[in-house]
């Protein structure tokens, strides 16, 4: 049995572990150690990290259904906010480094290219989630409304994985694995809701 305290204690370590890659890539970028096409590499790494963190937040909810891991849910907010952090870095790399704030070009890119459209909408949906991720906001909105807003994470996850799927040219194994995990996690929630409606959150 892991207590809430156990999980809370792991937070500082987890914080550093999840923050570390971004610092490393920033350092490698500045020192020219991010390979032959560093802007592309930076964007790919940041985006992949964000997608993985989004999936982890979904996993945490599922894991918290297992009795001994019930308290793991206290880690969810931090990881969710880190996902937003990586999405922001990913998006600003695209805007600033890749396209040098050429807004006309960027807007066209977002409209015309489905994979960028998916990614951009996913990013937009994350904003209300991130900005309501405080205890105070839960109180102000009421748990029920807050919960409704946070259902957006399902859309975010699906769009983000589609963003990745469409981007890949030929070998779609990795994006398909992520999509599969997301679908399984969603099915588990639907199943739970149907079989034990009183327990479903």
């Amino acid at each position, binding site marked *: 049995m892991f207590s809430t305290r156990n999980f809370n204690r792991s937070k500082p370590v987890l914080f550093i572990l999840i923050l570390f890659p971004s610092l490393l890539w920033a350092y490698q970028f500045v020192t020219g150690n991010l390979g*032959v096409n560093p802007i592309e590499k930076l964007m790919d790494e940041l985006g992949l990290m964000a997608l993985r963190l989004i999936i982890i937040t979904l996993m945490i909810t599922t894991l918290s259904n297992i009795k001994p891991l019930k308290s793991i849910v206290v880690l969810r907010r931090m990881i969710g906010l880190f996902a937003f952090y990586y999405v922001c870095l990913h998006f600003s790399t695209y805007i600033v480094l890749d396209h040098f704030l050429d807004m006309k070009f960027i807007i066209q890119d977002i409209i015309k290219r489905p994979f960028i459209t998916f990614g951009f909408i996913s990013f937009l949906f994350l904003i209300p989630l991130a900005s309501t991720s405080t205890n105070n906001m839960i109180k102000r909105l009421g748990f029920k409304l807050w919960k409704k807003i946070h259902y957006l994470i399902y859309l975010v996850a699906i769009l983000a994985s589609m963003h990745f799927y469409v981007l890949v040219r030929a070998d779609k194994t990795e994006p398909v694995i992520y999509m599969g995990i997301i679908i399984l996690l969603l099915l588990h929630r639907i199943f739970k809701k149907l079989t034990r409606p009183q327990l479903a959150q």
Partner: protein
Amino acid sequence: MKILSSEITPYKTYLNRRKFIKSSLASALLATVSSSVFANHDSNSSVYNKYLNENDKLNSYEEITTYNNFYEFGTHKKHPHLNSGNFKPRPWSIKIDGLVKKPQTFDLEKILSNVTIEDRVYRLRCVEAWSMVIPWQGFQLSELIKMAEPLSSAKYVQFVTVFRPEEMPGQQKRTIIWPYREGLRMDEAMNPLTILATGLYGHEMPNQNGAPIRLVVPWKYGFKSIKSIVEIRFLDTQPETSWETLAPWEYGFYANVNPNVNHPRWSQGTERRIGEFKRRETLMFNGYEKEVAHLYKDLDLTKFY
């Protein structure tokens, strides 16, 4: 196209760089087998910089050999460099068939003894909106076509990459339908810009760049420049090509570099030159408009992309 030889890397510097690369351990190994290819090497510096713009700078050997799209060795850019060590580019032969006087198989050595290897520095523009400047060594495809003696009914040329899943780990997975196939219209194939390259930076062609012999068509997106060719077929109808078969709405048969024809994944208006920070404008036909635009004067390039 303007040429200011003072503005681009002069041939001498290139030769020096070549010496430098040859002195490194890995390339010393390569250099031991390279003598045959350069038997007829013509090191004429005016040929070398004939096709460059004044703001083009050579990409480094490292850039050219560690950032590749060659799905036969894996789908990541670094995979060809990492996974091509077991590939054996010698001995090699090319099968010539289809609409020719006599179908036959040429040993690579025989082909090379009949041609003169030239330096050709070309811009390479990938459909993924990045580009490089690469000093190839090779010979005009037209020379091989003359050796092949195609019939007058031959209107297209198809190329096929070698299929060796035991040496090319990417082929063990069905990412695309193997073997890789590409094609050109006969007049494109005969154009003097179109070469079969056998080396780069004065080396034998590295495995990850398409050893021992590959096509280079500088006014088309990189995927047209098929690598490690084992078969050339002459046809009277437009051949199927790998990327077009996989996603015809994205990749056409012609695949001419064209900033005005959009691609669903990448804007083709700009590109990142590897090694540069800011994007640059993509040029019509990758800057070879003067040499090739006449080939397409009756073609709707938005329809035949």
